[in-house]
């Protein structure tokens, strides 16, 4: 059918108008209009209604396509302006490479450092735990409010009662950190093991990569000789053997059947766990209510809030307290969301770091802001021309902001590089405090954050200079007049930037300063022993080959004799737990001193308790202050003896000489022992933790199958590690040797958490100081150059260069003083957040604050001297002629 003339005209019109439509939309636009015209014409034709009136209506309707096309064109032009502005900004940046480099580098540092810290915060604090429905997972702790114990582990009998009585949970699982020696695969090796109740994996929603999980009946002693391997152990120790499931391996010289391999993403209770075995209870363990050694994790029943579970568990705890007042009186249960428990120790320091790094970003933005203000002054004429040609203030502001955005985008890209390096640094510095449930890396979320940060930074840095430049009077600018109003505004803004930078830097520097002073104080503490020249090694005797005390005693006597024979070794001893060490067996032991108040106290006081060999104190360099140390006569058949430390002597012997007094330990009067020695106090739990009351018993009287053996050498202790290992193997070739470390390393590790926070906060403070210095220099240079004519006039009227120099310095130092005052006030408030990380230093420590203020003032002085000296070299004639 031939189309009516009106339709043909309509189609022609659409074709012509389509040239207005931007190319990317043109085809679709034309198709849409043509389809509508044809559809309308055919509908009318089908009803015989296509007369001249309807054809005219169709033509009128089609003429509206002009407005449609014009609208699309206007939108396109607006978008194109952005591209044009961006291109222009790039050209400008390339013409001023020094300005561009400083601005981009500054932003890259700020954005990069913030991204790095955010990636850690995101992985550790924000992302949920990588288990099924993690919001329903809770940790169950025993707590005793009267003694301040908030999170004690759980005793077996209590745990079994909870499982039976509690309705708030679908499952309660328990676990404990353990170690098992793998033999028969090369050198014996101690593997970190999780002893876990069989319901743990279903509770977490985890399944093995190969094989199966544990069966419920494997919780029974005797049926528990099954093991799950971690992915890493399967790969490294068993060469990724695909037929590993069903094989038998020797752990602590007992045969265990491998029932499965866990995926490499599974890391519970922590990423170091290499094996999992069922947590089976011996019959006597099932009745124990006072030995709180198991961790408990539970899954809330659907719809049950934590508060309801807490209320129920408190009721159950109260009931158990009444039923077993001796062991459960005063004890409650604390239900803590697993996510909170996992990040508890990391949250505070991480949030402080995030705050610190945001301050660095603010300083970086302030810096770029001040550079832009200075550049805005140089671009006055260009902006004036744009204004005169019809660009509105909004348009000029858009243009200037695009300028900042281009820089910020380059800074953001550089920031990703900085962030990558930053993340590696943070992870390598991590003392093990950061939970590694989720990998710390630049992923989609972090990338999105960086993009957001880049836009925020460009607005922060660009808005103030943009407004300042866009609102200047075009007529004055065109004439090249630095009008007083315009000059004053830019100058005032620049000064405000200096004040802000100084204030922000002071907050950071005071924080870092306080941490440095604390660290110095910690290092000054006497550990109570001489760490240099000491090497330690963990020895655990398997109970199947060393079941009795005499065998264990003989083993350690022989081993220590053997070690003493090694060249360079001057002494050797053993103890259940070394100072600064997380390895070993730690006890809070109840005790009473006969004839003192502690003898009738209920409950009895508790002290740290360690089992040692004869030569331990001499080997460690712990001073003997009175009496004697243990000898070979202090054996099982001899008179029970103990040695106490000075803290214990001062606190529990009521001012009397402890030597010769009787001490009961372990509850009741079952273990009376004579105090035979007084030794110096040792900071066992870290240099920053005060020594606690402590007593030692001889290993011949209280034998123990696990000792930390320590040797003192005349030379480098690390050098004899091989010889020590050989000595152990010579004594028992099937014994794994774990944790060979020098005491200096142990001491160093104990300081790692403090060092982590110090290095990062110190690093941020150093960046802040550098940025502030660059910022001050830039602003003083700019404001001084703005005052060239003024200086010329002054010098023409008789001012000498010294006057000009002093004027510039005085002006700068006034801003610095204002910034310092504001910064000090803010620092005093903010540094309280660091209180828990400080040691023997108050958050308001006047020495730190004074030193920071003086140091910063000195840096500011040095920064302003250069521009000030340049101002003194102004030739009055040249300056006046320029006017």
């Amino acid at each position: 059918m031939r189309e009516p003339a009106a339709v043909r005209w309509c189609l022609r019109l659409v074709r012509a108008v389509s040239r207005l439509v931007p190319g990317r939309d043109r085809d679709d636009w034309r198709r849409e209009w043509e389809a509508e015209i044809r559809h309308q014409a055919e509908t009318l034709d089908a009803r015989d209604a296509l007369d001249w009136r309807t054809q005219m209506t169709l033509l009128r309707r089609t003429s509206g396509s002009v407005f449609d096309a014009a609208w699309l064109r206007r939108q396109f032009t607006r978008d194109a302006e952005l591209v044009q502005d961006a291109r222009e900004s790039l050209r400008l940046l390339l013409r001023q490479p020094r300005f561009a480099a400083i601005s981009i580098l500054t932003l890259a540092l700020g954005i990069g450092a913030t991204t790095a810290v955010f990636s850690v915060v995101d992985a550790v604090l924000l992302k949920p735990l990588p288990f099924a429905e993690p919001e329903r997972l809770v940790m169950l702790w025993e707590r005793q409010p009267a003694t301040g114990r908030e999170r004690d582990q759980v005793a077996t009998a209590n745990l079994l009662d909870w499982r039976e009585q509690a309705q708030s949970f679908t499952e309660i699982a328990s676990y404990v950190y353990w170690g098992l020696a793998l033999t028969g695969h090369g050198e014996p090796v101690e593997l970190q093991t999780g002893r876990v109740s069989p319901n743990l994996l279903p509770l977490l929603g985890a399944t093995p990569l190969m094989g199966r999980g544990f069966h419920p009946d494997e919780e029974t002693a005797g049926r528990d000789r099954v093991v799950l391997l971690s992915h890493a152990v399967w790969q490294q120790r068993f060469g990724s053997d695909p037929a590993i499931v069903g094989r038998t391996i020797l752990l602590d010289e007992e045969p265990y059947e491998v029932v499965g391999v866990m995926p490499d993403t599974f890391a519970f209770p922590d990423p170091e766990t290499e094996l999992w075995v069922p947590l089976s209870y011996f019959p006597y363990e099932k009745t124990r209510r006072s030995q709180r050694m198991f961790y408990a994790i539970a899954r809330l029943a659907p719809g049950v809030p934590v508060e309801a579970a807490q209320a129920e568990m408190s009721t159950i705890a109260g009931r158990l307290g009444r039923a077993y007042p001796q062991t459960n009186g005063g004890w409650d249960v604390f239900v803590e969301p697993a996510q909170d428990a996992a990040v508890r120790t990391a949250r505070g320091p991480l949030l402080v770091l995030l705050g610190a790094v945001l301050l660095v970003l603010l300083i970086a933005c302030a810096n770029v802001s001040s550079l832009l203000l200075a550049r805005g002054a140089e671009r006055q004429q260009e902006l004036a021309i744009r204004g005169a040609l019809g660009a509105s203030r909004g348009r000029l502001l858009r243009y200037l902001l695009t300028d900042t955005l281009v820089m910020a985008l380059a800074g953001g890209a550089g920031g990703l590089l900085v962030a990558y390096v930053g993340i590696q640094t943070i992870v390598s510095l991590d003392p093990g405090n950061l939970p590694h449930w989720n990998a710390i890396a630049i992923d989609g979320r972090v990338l999105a954050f960086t993009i957001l940060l880049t836009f925020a930074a460009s607005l922060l840095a660009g808005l103030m200079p943009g407004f300042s430049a866009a609102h200047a009077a075009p007529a004055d600018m065109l004439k090249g007049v630095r009008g007083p109003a315009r000059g004053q505004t830019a100058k005032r803004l620049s000064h405000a930037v200096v004040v802000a930078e100084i204030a922000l830097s002071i907050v950071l520097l005071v924080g870092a300063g306080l941490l440095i002073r604390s660290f110095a104080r910690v290092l000054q503490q006497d550990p109570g022993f001489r760490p240099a020249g000491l090497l330690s090694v963990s020895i655990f005797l398997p109970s199947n080959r060393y079941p009795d005390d005499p065998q264990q005693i003989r083993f350690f006597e022989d081993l220590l004799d053997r070690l003493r024979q090694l060249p360079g070794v001057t002494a050797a001893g053993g103890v259940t737990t070394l100072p600064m060490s997380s390895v070993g067996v730690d006890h809070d032991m109840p005790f009473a001193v006969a004839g003192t108040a502690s003898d009738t106290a209920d409950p009895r006081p508790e002290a740290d308790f360690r089992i040692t060999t004869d030569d331990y104190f001499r080997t460690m360099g712990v001073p003997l202050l009175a009496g004697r140390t243990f000898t070979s006569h202090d054996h099982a058949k001899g008179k029970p003896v103990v040695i106490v430390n000075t803290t214990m002597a001062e606190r529990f012997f009521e001012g009397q000489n402890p030597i010769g007094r009787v001490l009961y330990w372990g509850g009741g009067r079952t273990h009376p022992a004579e105090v035979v020695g007084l030794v110096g106090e040792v900071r066992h739990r870290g240099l920053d933790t005060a020594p606690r009351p402590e007593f030692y018993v001889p290993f011949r009287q209280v034998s123990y199958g696990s000792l930390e053996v320590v040797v003192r050498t005349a030379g480098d202790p690390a050098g004899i590690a091989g010889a020590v290992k050989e000595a152990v193997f010579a004594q028992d070739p099937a014994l794994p040797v774990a944790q060979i470390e020098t005491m200096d390393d142990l001491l160093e590790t104990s300081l790692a958490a403090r060092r982590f926070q110090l290095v990062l906060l110190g690093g941020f403070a150093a960046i802040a100081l550098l940025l502030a210095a660059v910022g001050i220099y830039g602003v003083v240079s700019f404001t001084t150059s703005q005052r060239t004519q003024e200086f010329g006039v002054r010098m023409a009227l008789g001012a000498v260069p010294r006057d000009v120099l002093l004027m510039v310095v005085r002006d700068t130092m006034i801003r610095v003083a204002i910034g310092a005052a504001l910064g000090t006030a803010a620092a005093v408030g903010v540094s309280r957040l660091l209180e828990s990380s400080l040691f023997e230093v108050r958050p308001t420590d006047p020495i730190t604050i004074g030193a920071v203020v003086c140091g910063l003032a000195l840096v500011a002085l040095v920064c302003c001297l250069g521009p000030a000296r340049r101002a003194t070299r102004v030739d009055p004639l040249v300056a006046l002629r320029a006017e």
Partner: protein
Amino acid sequence: MKLTYPTSLVLQALARGSHHGFDIMDATGLPSGTVYPILRRLDGEGLVASRWEKQTDAQKAQRPPRRYYRLTADGEAVLVQARDRYRALEDVRPAAARARTS
């Protein structure tokens, strides 16, 4: 976004079953130079989504495929506000009852 009376009319027409540019003009009485820019803006703001009619359907009717517009969930929410503001929107005729020609 700026919720003008014509914009509200277009939203209402879409809700009442008019899904093509010319149908919306029929339903609202607005000229094409108003309706199309409104549709483009609504599309850009995510209040309206558009797709092309299937080639096979168009071939059956022996004409080129038409562009089909519909309200998104956000668009429906804005329409609720628009109805509160402009009571007269109820006068927009449903697609089935619309005039055959304008």
